[in-house]
């Protein structure tokens, strides 16, 4: 098992390194201007490029970048928040995004699981239909549309919640964005849980367990849910990454200083900020690869059969 874990971690690190290099190479090789061109003339830009070492060979630049990045220095902004170290800006942004995304993940998974289990237990009845309709709406309507709806009704017409994000009242002002972000996760999880549980309920081993006299919570939680969880984890993984990082539009609408907004600002500003694009790209990719790795390893915990076959593959 340890060997398997190490191998997977090593592979993930290599993948990440390749991606970072590709990103770096693309950003440096492609034509484009990292500086706000309207405010600087050609000589200033040329000086700036020389100062940042943008004219050196790509490999030299990459080595310089990666050694600094490993020490936690991602450089300064070139056009966005000019001259301020990226780390300072990013740490606030990551804090905001992760807290709101984290609440959304927890809320979405918990409520989604509950809904799915309830629907599967009341199969074919009113609750089941309700769950189906709910999950269809949740999947079809983008989260930012929900946010616009909530914002319009509960912050504008009934001014109960703040209209824009306010970091000094974090708990209160994260209700609307977290709620709207969680809806997609919630409905996806609910749908998958319901379908998986219904399938597992029909399986022979659950029938056997039931005929042996097991019933109620023990049967549902230990025999049905555990076996239904494996596919659910697969669905959940990309959702988690999306929520932690890709709440882009939601952040834009609600005025949250998060990494999504930072990315949008970096690519839609006057000059596209290379350093921000790179740093955020690395962050996104690392998160994505990390979560995928975690899920792969989690399978082994949830389903011993996979652990065995993974070992077999090793041998």
């Amino acid at each position, binding site marked *: 098992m340890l060997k398997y874990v190490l191998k997977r971690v090593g592979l993930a690190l290599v993948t990440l390194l390749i991606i970072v290099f590709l990103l770096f190479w693309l950003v440096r090789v*492609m034509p484009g201007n990292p500086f706000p061109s309207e405010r600087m003339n050609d000589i200033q830009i040329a000086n700036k490029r020389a100062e940042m070492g943008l004219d050196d060979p790509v490999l030299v630049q990459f080595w310089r970048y990666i050694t600094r990045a490993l020490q936690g220095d991602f450089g300064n902004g070139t056009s966005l928040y000019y001259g301020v170290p990226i780390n300072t800006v990013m740490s606030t942004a990551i804090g905001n995004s992760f807290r709101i995304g984290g609440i959304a993940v927890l809320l979405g998974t918990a409520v989604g699981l509950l809904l799915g289990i309830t629907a599967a237990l009341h199969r074919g009845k009113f609750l089941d239909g309700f769950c189906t309709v709910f999950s269809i709406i949740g999947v*079809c309507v*983008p989260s930012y549309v929900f946010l*616009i709806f909530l914002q319009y009704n509960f912050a504008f017409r009934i001014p109960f919640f703040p209209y824009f994000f306010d970091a000094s009242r974090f708990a209160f002002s994260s209700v609307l964005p977290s709620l709207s972000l969680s809806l997609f996760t919630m409905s996806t999880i609910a749908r998958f849980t319901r379908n998986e549980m219904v399938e597992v309920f029909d399986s022979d081993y659950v029938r056997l367990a039931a005929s042996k006299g097991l019933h109620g919570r023990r049967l549902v939680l230990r025999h049905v849910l555990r076996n239904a969880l494996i596919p659910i984890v697969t669905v959940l993984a990309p959702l988690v990454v999306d929520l932690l990082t890709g709440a882009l539009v939601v952040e834009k609408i609600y005025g949250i200083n998060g990494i999504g907004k930072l990315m949008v600002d*970096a690519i*839609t500003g006057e000059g596209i900020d290379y350093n921000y*694009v790179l740093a*955020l790209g690395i962050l996104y990719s690392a998160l*994505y690869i990390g979560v995928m790795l975690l899920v792969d390893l989690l399978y082994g915990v949830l389903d011993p059969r996979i652990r065995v076959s993974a070992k077999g593959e090793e041998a």
Partner: protein
Amino acid sequence: MAKKNMQAAPAVAAEYVPVAGDFELLHSRDIQTDANFASQSYWKGVLIHFFKNKRAVVGLVIITVIMLLAIFGPIMNSYGYKDIVQFRNEKNKRVVAKGISPRIPWLHELLTGEKYDDSFSDLTFLFGTDDLGRDLWTRTWYGARVSLIIAFVTIIIDMIIGMSYGLISGYFGGLADNIMQRFVEIANSVPRLVIVSVLAIFMPKGMGLVIVALLLTEWIGMSKIARAEMLKIKEQEYVLASRTLGAGNGHIIFKEILPNTIGPIITQVMFSIPTAIFTEAFLSFVGVGIVLPQCSVGTLIEDGFNNITTLPYQILPPIIVLALLMLGFNFIGDGLREALAPKLEDM
């Protein structure tokens, strides 16, 4: 190898001398026939199964209606998608139809018995006009058209790329498969947003950026499914037969195996289209998608959002169209998946 077999065949036949009786027709009364039922072809079965599924039919109807409206909607009235509805009144002053809520004059008159009391009392705006005075009915369907075109173009190209990649990778196996799959893994771990932002550095914002971003990400799912199908099929007898007869790799992959993998791939296409529409809407909303004065569902939602406190009705049409598109394609995809690979219990 095939040629050798062909040459060998007549040599065997020459030993048998046919007699006249071999070619005599039988009288019809001598032939006993079984009661025969027309066999159902695969695709006919799929169609029957698909149309039995209520949801799939609802999805199909929704998508058909939206497509028809996307084609004919913008020409159903006289306003262009970027035209500002305006005219000069008797004092030669410019009057612009800014921010008019949805109205149908004759219906209003019928219900309330009075006319609208502004300069546009006899004009119909089914969805109203936006803050600049452009007709939202025209813009909504024009936007839907743009979104649908982007989705279809990218998904068809992605289908071709992903399918070929997956089929080739699965067919050859071994080292080629290993290298190709490592590449997929790496490509798959780059988040879409990162691709978009890198693209935004050297591509002008607009339709091209959206299409390229979608091209770069959507083929991966397609290739995975094609590869899985290939692995399932390539050991079957008919492939072996074809190879024995001397067919080349290209022929086997694209002529023999491809037609048999088409079912799961079509299903995947149906699920990719809403993803593409969604991504387009999201990129346009963020500001790297469709540029003005063109519009798509995403830019329309953004416009609506910007005016939500003053013209709240403006955001409704694009949101509803987007939701219905997602709903319709998801329903069709579900229906197709069940129809193409029916489980025994559903029959």
